Protein backbone atom coordinates (compact mmCIF):
# COMPACT_ATOMS: atom_id res chain seq x y z
CA UNK A 1 0.00 0.00 0.00
CA UNK A 2 1.30 3.44 -0.81
CA UNK A 3 1.48 6.13 1.84
CA UNK A 4 -1.18 8.12 0.02
CA UNK A 5 -3.53 5.15 0.53
CA UNK A 6 -2.55 4.65 4.16
CA UNK A 7 -2.63 8.22 5.39
CA UNK A 8 -6.10 9.09 4.17
CA UNK A 9 -8.07 11.94 5.69
CA UNK A 10 -9.97 9.61 7.98
CA UNK A 11 -6.85 8.01 9.49
CA UNK A 12 -5.30 11.41 10.11
CA UNK A 13 -8.54 12.66 11.63
CA UNK A 14 -8.71 9.77 14.12
CA UNK A 15 -4.99 10.25 14.86
CA UNK A 16 -5.37 13.96 15.60
CA UNK A 17 -8.84 13.85 17.14
CA UNK A 18 -9.09 10.44 18.74
CA UNK A 19 -12.61 9.43 19.75
CA UNK A 20 -13.09 7.76 23.14
CA UNK A 21 -9.68 8.87 24.34
CA UNK A 22 -9.31 8.69 28.11
CA UNK A 23 -9.71 6.38 31.07
CA UNK A 24 -12.56 4.74 32.97
CA UNK A 25 -12.40 4.44 36.72
CA UNK A 26 -12.51 0.85 37.95
CA UNK A 27 -13.32 -0.64 34.56
CA UNK A 28 -14.42 -4.25 34.15
CA UNK A 29 -11.67 -4.80 31.62
CA UNK A 30 -8.32 -3.02 31.71
CA UNK A 31 -5.28 -3.87 29.63
CA UNK A 32 -2.05 -2.20 28.64
CA UNK A 33 0.46 -3.40 26.10
CA UNK A 34 3.25 -2.05 23.98
CA UNK A 35 5.08 -2.99 20.84
CA UNK A 36 8.69 -3.33 22.01
CA UNK A 37 10.02 -2.85 18.50
CA UNK A 38 8.72 0.66 18.12
CA UNK A 39 7.59 1.61 21.62
CA UNK A 40 3.94 2.16 20.70
CA UNK A 41 1.80 2.01 23.83
CA UNK A 42 -1.87 1.36 24.26
CA UNK A 43 -4.17 1.01 27.25
CA UNK A 44 -7.82 0.07 26.90
CA UNK A 45 -10.62 0.26 29.49
CA UNK A 46 -14.02 -1.36 29.01
CA UNK A 47 -17.21 -1.52 31.07
CA UNK A 48 -19.81 -4.19 30.45
CA UNK A 49 -23.50 -4.06 31.30
CA UNK A 50 -26.00 -6.79 30.48
CA UNK A 51 -23.40 -8.49 28.33
CA UNK A 52 -22.89 -5.39 26.21
CA UNK A 53 -20.06 -2.85 26.02
CA UNK A 54 -21.50 0.06 27.98
CA UNK A 55 -18.34 2.18 27.80
CA UNK A 56 -14.89 1.97 26.27
CA UNK A 57 -11.91 4.29 26.37
CA UNK A 58 -8.27 4.14 25.37
CA UNK A 59 -5.03 6.05 25.93
CA UNK A 60 -1.75 5.61 24.18
CA UNK A 61 1.04 7.05 22.17
CA UNK A 62 2.34 5.92 18.85
CA UNK A 63 2.03 6.27 15.13
CA UNK A 64 -1.06 7.38 13.22
CA UNK A 65 -1.94 3.81 12.29
CA UNK A 66 -1.82 2.44 15.83
CA UNK A 67 -3.72 5.34 17.38
CA UNK A 68 -6.36 5.59 14.66
CA UNK A 69 -6.81 1.84 14.80
CA UNK A 70 -7.42 1.97 18.56
CA UNK A 71 -9.85 4.84 18.32
CA UNK A 72 -11.81 3.25 15.48
CA UNK A 73 -11.90 -0.03 17.36
CA UNK A 74 -13.49 1.65 20.39
CA UNK A 75 -16.21 3.03 18.13
CA UNK A 76 -16.71 -0.35 16.54
CA UNK A 77 -17.34 -2.13 19.86
CA UNK A 78 -19.23 0.58 21.75
CA UNK A 79 -22.70 -0.73 22.64
CA UNK A 80 -22.05 -4.10 21.00
CA UNK A 81 -22.72 -7.57 22.43
CA UNK A 82 -19.75 -9.03 24.28
CA UNK A 83 -19.97 -12.09 22.01
CA UNK A 84 -19.49 -9.89 18.95
CA UNK A 85 -16.46 -8.25 20.56
CA UNK A 86 -14.94 -11.60 21.48
CA UNK A 87 -15.17 -12.81 17.90
CA UNK A 88 -13.48 -9.84 16.22
CA UNK A 89 -10.70 -10.90 13.85
CA UNK A 90 -7.67 -9.33 12.28
CA UNK A 91 -9.61 -9.01 9.02
CA UNK A 92 -12.41 -7.10 10.77
CA UNK A 93 -9.92 -4.55 12.07
CA UNK A 94 -8.16 -4.03 8.75
CA UNK A 95 -11.52 -3.78 7.01
CA UNK A 96 -12.67 -1.21 9.55
CA UNK A 97 -9.50 0.82 8.97
CA UNK A 98 -9.62 0.40 5.22
CA UNK A 99 -6.02 -0.87 5.33
CA UNK A 100 -5.77 -4.16 3.49
CA UNK A 101 -2.26 -4.47 2.30
CA UNK A 102 0.09 -3.27 5.05
CA UNK A 103 3.61 -4.65 5.06
CA UNK A 104 4.83 -6.91 7.87
CA UNK A 105 6.40 -4.03 9.81
CA UNK A 106 3.33 -1.81 9.86
CA UNK A 107 0.59 -4.41 10.24
CA UNK A 108 1.63 -4.70 13.89
CA UNK A 109 0.74 -1.05 14.36
CA UNK A 110 -2.74 -1.69 13.00
CA UNK A 111 -3.29 -4.80 15.12
CA UNK A 112 -1.91 -3.62 18.46
CA UNK A 113 -5.40 -2.41 19.44
CA UNK A 114 -6.97 -5.81 18.77
CA UNK A 115 -4.16 -7.49 20.66
CA UNK A 116 -4.75 -5.32 23.71
CA UNK A 117 -8.50 -5.92 23.44
CA UNK A 118 -8.10 -9.68 23.21
CA UNK A 119 -5.67 -9.87 26.12
CA UNK A 120 -8.07 -7.70 28.13
CA UNK A 121 -10.95 -10.05 27.35
CA UNK A 122 -8.74 -13.01 28.21
CA UNK A 123 -8.00 -11.65 31.69
CA UNK A 124 -11.67 -10.84 32.23
CA UNK A 125 -12.94 -14.22 31.06
CA UNK A 126 -10.36 -16.22 32.97
CA UNK A 127 -10.24 -14.21 36.21
CA UNK A 128 -13.75 -12.87 36.56
CA UNK A 129 -15.85 -15.40 34.63
CA UNK A 130 -13.53 -18.33 35.51
CA UNK A 131 -14.12 -19.76 32.05
CA UNK A 132 -10.69 -21.14 31.32
CA UNK A 133 -11.69 -22.91 28.11
CA UNK A 134 -12.92 -19.75 26.36
CA UNK A 135 -10.09 -17.78 27.90
CA UNK A 136 -7.41 -20.05 26.50
CA UNK A 137 -8.93 -19.79 23.04
CA UNK A 138 -8.90 -15.98 23.23
CA UNK A 139 -5.34 -15.95 24.50
CA UNK A 140 -4.27 -18.11 21.61
CA UNK A 141 -5.94 -15.73 19.16
CA UNK A 142 -4.24 -12.75 20.80
CA UNK A 143 -0.77 -14.24 20.74
CA UNK A 144 -1.27 -15.34 17.13
CA UNK A 145 -1.85 -11.78 15.91
CA UNK A 146 1.86 -10.95 15.69
Amino acid at each position, binding site marked *: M*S*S*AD*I*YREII*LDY*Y*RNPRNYGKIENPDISKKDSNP*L*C*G*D*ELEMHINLRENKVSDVKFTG*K*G*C*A*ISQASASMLTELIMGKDFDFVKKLTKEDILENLGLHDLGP*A*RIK*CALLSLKVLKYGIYSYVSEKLKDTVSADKIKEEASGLF
Partner: protein
Amino acid sequence: MQTSVINIESIRNDFPILKRKVHNDKPLVYFDNAATSQKPIQVINSISNYYLNYNSNIHRAVHELAEESTAAYELTRDKVAKFINVKNREELVFVRGTTEAINLVAYSWGRQNVQKDDIVVTTEYEHHSNIVPWQLLTKEKGAKLEYIGVDDNGELILDQLDTYLDTGKVKLVTFSQMSNVLGTMSKTEEIVKKCHQKGVLVLVDGAQSVPHLKVDIQKLDCDFFAFSAHKMLGPTGVGVLWARKELLEKMVPFNAGGDMIREVHKYETTWNDLPYKFEAGTPNIADVIGFSAALDYLEKIGMDKVREHEVELTRYALDKISAVKGIVLYGPPDVAKRGGVISFNLGDIHPHDLATIIDEDGIAIRSGHHCAQVLMERLDVSATSRASFYIYNTKEEVDVFIKSLNRARELFRL
Protein backbone atom coordinates in the same frame (compact mmCIF):
# COMPACT_ATOMS: atom_id res chain seq x y z
CA MET B 1 27.98 18.35 -6.25
CA GLN B 2 30.07 16.09 -4.07
CA THR B 3 32.07 17.19 -1.08
CA SER B 4 35.56 18.07 -2.15
CA VAL B 5 37.51 16.08 0.41
CA ILE B 6 37.05 12.53 -0.88
CA ASN B 7 36.33 10.94 -4.24
CA ILE B 8 32.79 9.79 -3.60
CA GLU B 9 32.21 8.42 -7.05
CA SER B 10 35.03 5.93 -6.79
CA ILE B 11 34.03 5.07 -3.21
CA ARG B 12 30.42 4.43 -4.23
CA ASN B 13 31.63 2.07 -6.94
CA ASP B 14 33.11 -0.13 -4.25
CA PHE B 15 29.72 -0.67 -2.61
CA PRO B 16 27.62 -3.02 -4.78
CA ILE B 17 24.51 -2.52 -2.63
CA LEU B 18 24.38 1.18 -3.48
CA LYS B 19 23.55 0.23 -7.07
CA ARG B 20 20.36 -1.57 -6.13
CA LYS B 21 16.92 -0.05 -6.44
CA VAL B 22 14.20 -0.18 -3.83
CA HIS B 23 10.43 0.09 -4.26
CA ASN B 24 10.79 -0.87 -7.93
CA ASP B 25 12.83 1.95 -9.35
CA LYS B 26 14.08 4.23 -6.57
CA PRO B 27 17.83 4.47 -6.04
CA LEU B 28 18.71 3.51 -2.49
CA VAL B 29 19.55 6.43 -0.21
CA TYR B 30 21.08 4.73 2.79
CA PHE B 31 20.95 7.03 5.83
CA ASP B 32 20.92 4.37 8.55
CA ASN B 33 24.65 4.18 9.06
CA ALA B 34 24.53 4.65 12.82
CA ALA B 35 22.72 1.30 12.92
CA THR B 36 25.10 -0.46 10.56
CA SER B 37 27.20 0.63 7.61
CA GLN B 38 27.26 -0.94 4.16
CA LYS B 39 30.24 -3.11 3.14
CA PRO B 40 32.66 -2.48 0.30
CA ILE B 41 33.46 -5.25 -2.17
CA GLN B 42 36.94 -5.54 -0.64
CA VAL B 43 35.44 -6.71 2.66
CA ILE B 44 32.99 -9.08 0.98
CA ASN B 45 35.80 -10.56 -1.15
CA SER B 46 38.09 -10.99 1.80
CA ILE B 47 35.46 -13.05 3.64
CA SER B 48 34.68 -15.22 0.64
CA ASN B 49 38.38 -15.63 -0.10
CA TYR B 50 38.84 -17.06 3.40
CA TYR B 51 36.04 -19.59 2.90
CA LEU B 52 37.11 -20.42 -0.65
CA ASN B 53 40.81 -20.81 -0.04
CA TYR B 54 42.00 -21.22 3.54
CA ASN B 55 39.05 -21.94 5.82
CA SER B 56 40.44 -23.65 8.93
CA ASN B 57 40.41 -23.26 12.67
CA ILE B 58 43.05 -21.04 14.18
CA HIS B 59 45.81 -21.33 16.81
CA ARG B 60 45.94 -25.14 17.20
CA ALA B 61 46.54 -27.09 14.03
CA VAL B 62 49.95 -27.13 12.36
CA HIS B 63 48.82 -27.55 8.76
CA GLU B 64 49.28 -24.87 6.13
CA LEU B 65 45.66 -23.72 6.05
CA ALA B 66 45.65 -23.16 9.79
CA GLU B 67 48.87 -21.19 9.57
CA GLU B 68 47.32 -18.94 6.97
CA SER B 69 44.06 -18.41 8.85
CA THR B 70 45.87 -17.81 12.14
CA ALA B 71 48.15 -15.28 10.52
CA ALA B 72 45.22 -13.46 8.87
CA TYR B 73 43.21 -13.43 12.10
CA GLU B 74 46.11 -12.11 14.14
CA LEU B 75 46.99 -9.58 11.46
CA THR B 76 43.63 -7.93 12.10
CA ARG B 77 44.61 -7.49 15.73
CA ASP B 78 47.78 -5.68 14.64
CA LYS B 79 45.77 -3.48 12.30
CA VAL B 80 43.29 -2.60 15.04
CA ALA B 81 46.21 -1.73 17.33
CA LYS B 82 47.54 0.65 14.72
CA PHE B 83 44.09 2.03 13.83
CA ILE B 84 43.27 3.21 17.34
CA ASN B 85 46.90 3.60 18.47
CA VAL B 86 47.15 0.89 21.07
CA LYS B 87 50.62 0.07 22.36
CA ASN B 88 50.18 -3.61 23.27
CA ARG B 89 48.32 -5.85 20.84
CA GLU B 90 47.55 -8.33 23.63
CA GLU B 91 45.29 -5.71 25.18
CA LEU B 92 42.84 -6.15 22.29
CA VAL B 93 40.15 -8.78 22.72
CA PHE B 94 37.88 -9.80 19.85
CA VAL B 95 34.26 -10.11 20.89
CA ARG B 96 30.91 -10.16 19.07
CA GLY B 97 30.35 -6.44 19.28
CA THR B 98 30.27 -3.40 21.55
CA THR B 99 27.47 -4.90 23.61
CA GLU B 100 29.47 -8.01 24.40
CA ALA B 101 32.57 -5.94 25.18
CA ILE B 102 30.66 -3.89 27.76
CA ASN B 103 29.07 -6.98 29.23
CA LEU B 104 32.49 -8.60 29.50
CA VAL B 105 33.70 -5.68 31.60
CA ALA B 106 30.52 -5.61 33.70
CA TYR B 107 30.57 -9.36 34.40
CA SER B 108 34.29 -9.80 34.89
CA TRP B 109 35.80 -6.56 36.19
CA GLY B 110 32.49 -5.33 37.62
CA ARG B 111 31.79 -8.39 39.73
CA GLN B 112 35.30 -8.37 41.13
CA ASN B 113 35.48 -4.66 41.87
CA VAL B 114 32.06 -3.12 42.48
CA GLN B 115 30.74 -3.66 45.99
CA LYS B 116 27.75 -2.60 48.07
CA ASP B 117 27.16 1.18 48.11
CA ASP B 118 29.70 1.80 45.35
CA ILE B 119 28.60 3.97 42.44
CA VAL B 120 28.75 3.35 38.70
CA VAL B 121 28.17 6.50 36.65
CA THR B 122 26.70 6.44 33.17
CA THR B 123 24.91 9.16 31.15
CA GLU B 124 21.42 9.98 29.96
CA TYR B 125 22.45 9.62 26.33
CA GLU B 126 23.71 6.06 26.49
CA HIS B 127 22.58 3.20 24.32
CA HIS B 128 20.77 0.50 26.31
CA SER B 129 23.90 -1.61 26.01
CA ASN B 130 25.75 0.84 28.24
CA ILE B 131 22.91 1.03 30.79
CA VAL B 132 21.40 -2.40 31.26
CA PRO B 133 24.64 -4.31 32.07
CA TRP B 134 25.28 -1.74 34.81
CA GLN B 135 21.72 -2.00 36.12
CA LEU B 136 22.20 -5.75 36.47
CA LEU B 137 25.57 -5.34 38.17
CA THR B 138 24.57 -2.59 40.60
CA LYS B 139 21.33 -4.37 41.56
CA GLU B 140 23.22 -7.59 42.20
CA LYS B 141 25.82 -5.83 44.34
CA GLY B 142 23.58 -3.34 46.13
CA ALA B 143 25.54 -0.59 44.43
CA LYS B 144 24.12 2.55 42.84
CA LEU B 145 23.79 3.59 39.22
CA GLU B 146 23.89 7.34 38.63
CA TYR B 147 23.40 9.39 35.46
CA ILE B 148 25.16 12.44 34.09
CA GLY B 149 22.35 14.55 32.66
CA VAL B 150 22.07 16.04 29.18
CA ASP B 151 21.50 19.78 28.69
CA ASP B 152 19.21 21.40 26.13
CA ASN B 153 22.01 21.48 23.56
CA GLY B 154 22.38 17.73 23.89
CA GLU B 155 25.66 17.94 25.82
CA LEU B 156 26.62 16.26 29.07
CA ILE B 157 26.32 18.34 32.25
CA LEU B 158 29.78 17.66 33.60
CA ASP B 159 29.22 19.47 36.93
CA GLN B 160 27.09 16.48 37.86
CA LEU B 161 30.09 14.21 37.29
CA ASP B 162 32.07 16.30 39.79
CA THR B 163 29.33 15.85 42.37
CA TYR B 164 29.37 12.08 41.95
CA LEU B 165 33.19 11.94 42.03
CA ASP B 166 33.23 13.97 45.24
CA THR B 167 31.36 11.20 47.08
CA GLY B 168 34.49 9.05 46.82
CA LYS B 169 32.28 6.06 46.05
CA VAL B 170 32.50 5.99 42.27
CA LYS B 171 34.20 2.88 40.87
CA LEU B 172 33.60 3.40 37.17
CA VAL B 173 32.40 6.11 34.79
CA THR B 174 31.10 4.75 31.51
CA PHE B 175 29.93 6.79 28.54
CA SER B 176 29.67 6.98 24.80
CA GLN B 177 32.29 8.98 22.92
CA MET B 178 29.53 9.92 20.49
CA SER B 179 25.81 9.70 21.14
CA ASN B 180 24.00 7.41 18.70
CA VAL B 181 20.92 9.66 18.80
CA LEU B 182 22.17 13.22 19.18
CA GLY B 183 25.54 12.81 17.54
CA THR B 184 27.04 14.72 20.47
CA MET B 185 30.74 14.15 20.97
CA SER B 186 31.58 13.76 24.64
CA LYS B 187 34.51 15.67 26.08
CA THR B 188 36.23 12.37 26.56
CA GLU B 189 39.70 13.53 27.53
CA GLU B 190 38.34 16.01 30.05
CA ILE B 191 36.12 13.35 31.65
CA VAL B 192 38.98 10.86 31.80
CA LYS B 193 41.22 13.44 33.45
CA LYS B 194 38.62 14.29 36.09
CA CYS B 195 38.06 10.61 36.85
CA HIS B 196 41.72 9.68 37.02
CA GLN B 197 42.41 12.52 39.44
CA LYS B 198 40.07 10.68 41.80
CA GLY B 199 41.42 7.24 40.92
CA VAL B 200 38.23 6.27 39.10
CA LEU B 201 38.31 4.03 36.02
CA VAL B 202 36.68 4.99 32.73
CA LEU B 203 35.00 2.91 30.04
CA VAL B 204 34.43 4.59 26.68
CA ASP B 205 31.83 3.23 24.25
CA GLY B 206 33.34 3.94 20.84
CA ALA B 207 30.66 2.27 18.72
CA GLN B 208 29.68 5.57 17.07
CA SER B 209 33.04 7.34 17.19
CA VAL B 210 35.62 4.91 15.82
CA PRO B 211 33.86 4.62 12.43
CA HIS B 212 33.83 8.38 11.96
CA LEU B 213 36.81 9.97 13.76
CA LYS B 214 40.48 9.44 14.32
CA VAL B 215 40.52 7.78 17.73
CA ASP B 216 43.77 7.58 19.67
CA ILE B 217 43.53 5.37 22.73
CA GLN B 218 46.82 6.56 24.21
CA LYS B 219 45.67 10.15 23.92
CA LEU B 220 42.24 9.43 25.39
CA ASP B 221 43.97 7.63 28.25
CA CYS B 222 40.79 5.75 29.25
CA ASP B 223 40.85 2.28 30.86
CA PHE B 224 38.36 0.30 28.78
CA PHE B 225 37.28 0.97 25.21
CA ALA B 226 34.66 -0.89 23.15
CA PHE B 227 33.56 -0.74 19.53
CA SER B 228 32.04 -2.80 16.69
CA ALA B 229 33.26 -3.67 13.20
CA HIS B 230 29.89 -3.57 11.46
CA LYS B 231 29.40 0.17 11.84
CA MET B 232 32.73 0.82 10.12
CA LEU B 233 32.42 -1.11 6.84
CA GLY B 234 33.22 -4.44 8.51
CA PRO B 235 31.06 -7.52 8.99
CA THR B 236 28.54 -8.08 11.78
CA GLY B 237 29.55 -10.27 14.70
CA VAL B 238 32.94 -8.69 15.36
CA GLY B 239 33.75 -6.21 18.08
CA VAL B 240 36.77 -5.15 20.04
CA LEU B 241 37.39 -4.64 23.71
CA TRP B 242 40.55 -2.81 24.60
CA ALA B 243 41.61 -2.64 28.24
CA ARG B 244 44.81 -1.89 30.10
CA LYS B 245 46.95 -4.97 30.50
CA GLU B 246 47.10 -4.70 34.27
CA LEU B 247 43.29 -4.74 34.39
CA LEU B 248 42.89 -7.66 31.98
CA GLU B 249 45.49 -9.65 33.90
CA LYS B 250 43.51 -9.40 37.11
CA MET B 251 40.13 -10.06 35.51
CA VAL B 252 38.59 -13.52 35.51
CA PRO B 253 37.47 -15.02 32.20
CA PHE B 254 33.97 -14.13 31.02
CA ASN B 255 33.51 -17.23 28.87
CA ALA B 256 35.27 -20.49 29.57
CA GLY B 257 36.18 -23.22 27.10
CA GLY B 258 38.70 -23.93 24.38
CA ASP B 259 41.55 -21.60 23.45
CA MET B 260 41.37 -19.60 26.68
CA ILE B 261 43.17 -22.19 28.78
CA ARG B 262 46.77 -23.10 29.40
CA GLU B 263 46.31 -26.36 31.31
CA VAL B 264 43.10 -28.09 32.30
CA HIS B 265 43.00 -30.69 35.05
CA LYS B 266 39.97 -32.28 36.62
CA TYR B 267 39.42 -29.53 39.18
CA GLU B 268 41.80 -26.75 38.26
CA THR B 269 42.57 -24.76 35.15
CA THR B 270 45.19 -22.15 34.40
CA TRP B 271 44.43 -19.42 31.93
CA ASN B 272 46.01 -18.73 28.59
CA ASP B 273 47.93 -15.50 27.99
CA LEU B 274 46.21 -12.27 27.04
CA PRO B 275 44.14 -11.74 24.99
CA TYR B 276 43.28 -15.43 24.50
CA LYS B 277 42.10 -15.73 28.09
CA PHE B 278 39.03 -13.80 26.93
CA GLU B 279 38.54 -15.49 23.55
CA ALA B 280 36.99 -18.83 24.45
CA GLY B 281 35.83 -21.15 21.71
CA THR B 282 36.30 -20.85 17.98
CA PRO B 283 36.03 -17.15 17.26
CA ASN B 284 34.39 -15.47 14.30
CA ILE B 285 37.46 -16.06 12.14
CA ALA B 286 36.02 -15.14 8.75
CA ASP B 287 34.57 -11.87 9.92
CA VAL B 288 37.63 -10.84 11.89
CA ILE B 289 39.58 -11.34 8.66
CA GLY B 290 36.93 -9.35 6.78
CA PHE B 291 37.31 -6.56 9.33
CA SER B 292 40.94 -6.30 8.31
CA ALA B 293 39.85 -5.25 4.82
CA ALA B 294 37.51 -2.65 6.32
CA LEU B 295 40.37 -1.15 8.33
CA ASP B 296 42.53 -1.04 5.20
CA TYR B 297 39.74 0.70 3.36
CA LEU B 298 39.32 3.41 5.99
CA GLU B 299 43.08 3.85 6.40
CA LYS B 300 43.38 4.39 2.68
CA ILE B 301 40.86 7.22 2.75
CA GLY B 302 42.20 8.54 6.04
CA MET B 303 40.03 9.11 9.10
CA ASP B 304 40.62 12.86 9.00
CA LYS B 305 39.14 12.92 5.50
CA VAL B 306 36.22 10.76 6.62
CA ARG B 307 35.47 13.25 9.37
CA GLU B 308 35.91 16.24 7.07
CA HIS B 309 33.49 14.77 4.54
CA GLU B 310 30.89 14.09 7.21
CA VAL B 311 31.22 17.55 8.74
CA GLU B 312 30.62 19.10 5.34
CA LEU B 313 27.67 16.83 4.59
CA THR B 314 26.15 17.30 8.05
CA ARG B 315 26.49 21.07 7.79
CA TYR B 316 24.75 20.97 4.42
CA ALA B 317 21.99 18.68 5.72
CA LEU B 318 21.41 20.71 8.90
CA ASP B 319 21.17 23.84 6.85
CA LYS B 320 18.59 22.32 4.49
CA ILE B 321 16.56 20.49 7.11
CA SER B 322 16.30 23.56 9.35
CA ALA B 323 14.35 25.24 6.57
CA VAL B 324 11.70 22.49 6.50
CA LYS B 325 8.61 23.90 8.20
CA GLY B 326 7.68 22.15 11.42
CA ILE B 327 11.06 20.49 11.94
CA VAL B 328 12.40 19.97 15.47
CA LEU B 329 16.09 19.07 15.70
CA TYR B 330 17.86 17.41 18.62
CA GLY B 331 21.54 17.61 19.48
CA PRO B 332 24.22 20.31 19.38
CA PRO B 333 23.61 23.00 16.74
CA ASP B 334 27.38 23.35 16.28
CA VAL B 335 28.64 20.87 13.65
CA ALA B 336 32.07 20.81 15.28
CA LYS B 337 30.53 19.25 18.38
CA ARG B 338 28.65 16.46 16.65
CA GLY B 339 28.97 13.54 14.30
CA GLY B 340 27.02 12.85 11.13
CA VAL B 341 23.81 11.97 12.93
CA ILE B 342 20.66 14.07 12.74
CA SER B 343 17.72 13.25 14.99
CA PHE B 344 14.50 15.11 14.38
CA ASN B 345 10.74 15.21 14.46
CA LEU B 346 8.48 16.74 11.86
CA GLY B 347 5.23 18.33 13.04
CA ASP B 348 2.95 15.73 14.60
CA ILE B 349 4.06 13.01 12.20
CA HIS B 350 5.10 10.02 14.25
CA PRO B 351 8.61 8.84 13.28
CA HIS B 352 7.31 5.46 12.16
CA ASP B 353 4.86 7.08 9.81
CA LEU B 354 7.59 9.37 8.53
CA ALA B 355 9.98 6.46 7.95
CA THR B 356 7.27 4.59 6.05
CA ILE B 357 6.58 7.56 3.81
CA ILE B 358 10.17 8.40 2.94
CA ASP B 359 11.05 4.73 2.50
CA GLU B 360 8.78 4.88 -0.54
CA ASP B 361 11.23 7.37 -2.01
CA GLY B 362 14.07 4.93 -1.42
CA ILE B 363 15.36 6.56 1.76
CA ALA B 364 16.39 4.33 4.63
CA ILE B 365 16.37 6.13 7.98
CA ARG B 366 15.78 4.89 11.50
CA SER B 367 12.74 5.73 13.57
CA GLY B 368 11.96 4.88 17.15
CA HIS B 369 13.78 5.14 20.44
CA HIS B 370 17.16 4.03 19.02
CA CYS B 371 17.76 1.81 22.06
CA ALA B 372 18.02 5.00 24.12
CA GLN B 373 14.76 5.19 26.04
CA VAL B 374 16.39 7.04 28.93
CA LEU B 375 17.30 9.81 26.49
CA MET B 376 13.81 9.77 24.93
CA GLU B 377 12.41 10.40 28.41
CA ARG B 378 14.85 13.27 28.89
CA LEU B 379 13.85 14.79 25.54
CA ASP B 380 10.21 14.14 26.46
CA VAL B 381 9.45 12.37 23.19
CA SER B 382 8.41 8.77 22.57
CA ALA B 383 10.54 8.52 19.46
CA THR B 384 12.60 10.44 16.91
CA SER B 385 13.61 9.96 13.31
CA ARG B 386 17.32 9.69 12.65
CA ALA B 387 19.35 10.17 9.50
CA SER B 388 23.00 9.17 9.78
CA PHE B 389 25.71 9.54 7.16
CA TYR B 390 28.88 7.84 6.03
CA ILE B 391 31.62 8.15 3.44
CA TYR B 392 29.43 7.16 0.48
CA ASN B 393 26.62 9.65 1.12
CA THR B 394 26.24 12.74 -1.04
CA LYS B 395 24.63 16.15 -1.01
CA GLU B 396 22.36 14.99 -3.84
CA GLU B 397 21.04 12.30 -1.51
CA VAL B 398 20.39 14.93 1.14
CA ASP B 399 18.35 16.85 -1.46
CA VAL B 400 16.27 13.73 -2.20
CA PHE B 401 15.73 13.33 1.54
CA ILE B 402 14.59 16.94 2.02
CA LYS B 403 12.21 16.65 -0.92
CA SER B 404 10.77 13.51 0.63
CA LEU B 405 10.28 15.23 4.00
CA ASN B 406 8.24 17.86 2.22
CA ARG B 407 6.15 15.16 0.56
CA ALA B 408 5.47 13.73 4.04
CA ARG B 409 4.33 17.18 5.18
CA GLU B 410 1.88 17.31 2.30
CA LEU B 411 0.55 13.83 2.99
CA PHE B 412 -0.07 14.80 6.60
CA ARG B 413 -1.56 18.13 5.51
CA LEU B 414 0.94 20.06 7.60
